[in-house]
């Protein structure tokens, strides 16, 4: 799956979790760029992304992903 395809699947997940249809994700997007990205929504986001892509993340992987671009790279590394 290309990065573009991952962003296309990822954006609706962010929109659902943060209840905001206008979210535009870029590789540089971080938690401070999206209203409502608190600890509870972070949990919902991780669980929703795992379900959407059929992958599972570890705690260490989450700790190393500092922006959406790194998150997308992580997702891509887990897909066949």
């Amino acid at each position, binding site marked *: 799956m290309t990065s573009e395809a991952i962003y296309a699947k990822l954006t609706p997940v962010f929109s659902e979790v943060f209840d905001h249809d206008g979210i535009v994700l870029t590789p540089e997007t971080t938690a401070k760029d999206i209203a409502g990205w608190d600890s509870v929504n972070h*949990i919902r986001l991780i669980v929703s992304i*795992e*379900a959407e892509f059929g992958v*599972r993340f570890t*705690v260490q992987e989450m700790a190393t992903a500092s922006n959406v671009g790194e998150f997308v790279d992580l997702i891509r590394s887990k897909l066949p």
Partner: protein
Amino acid sequence: MSQAAALTFADLSEGMTAGFDFAIDDAEMRAFAALSGDRNPLHCEESFARARGFSGRVVYGALLVAKVSRLIGMELPGRDALWNSLQMQFAAPLIVGEPARLDASLTQVSEAARSVVLALTVTSGGKTVARGKAMVSVL
């Protein structure tokens, strides 16, 4: 079960199940009406419910959610549960006194979020009364 189960996060795996039989009686309906202030006649007046085509008073949907709370807080995962979210659809009415069953299965275990997802189904007399999904963190 009077004490909550104490499953740790490591105890949890996809495919685990829990469930129990129940029936909502008049005392529970009255207690919920007093607690919530919802005295809608569909739930409180037998004649009104029958006149609207039901075989008796319709159980409050929130009382089915209360059973979900019992399952999460007491059984799966139990003591260390922190309930994050719930989606629930009410597919058919449950009538006061009708036997019913709540079943849950663990469909997702997220190590990164230290959370699990439960698929929920309430059935009665062979039909689905409600279905839903709950996300629960494990403390």
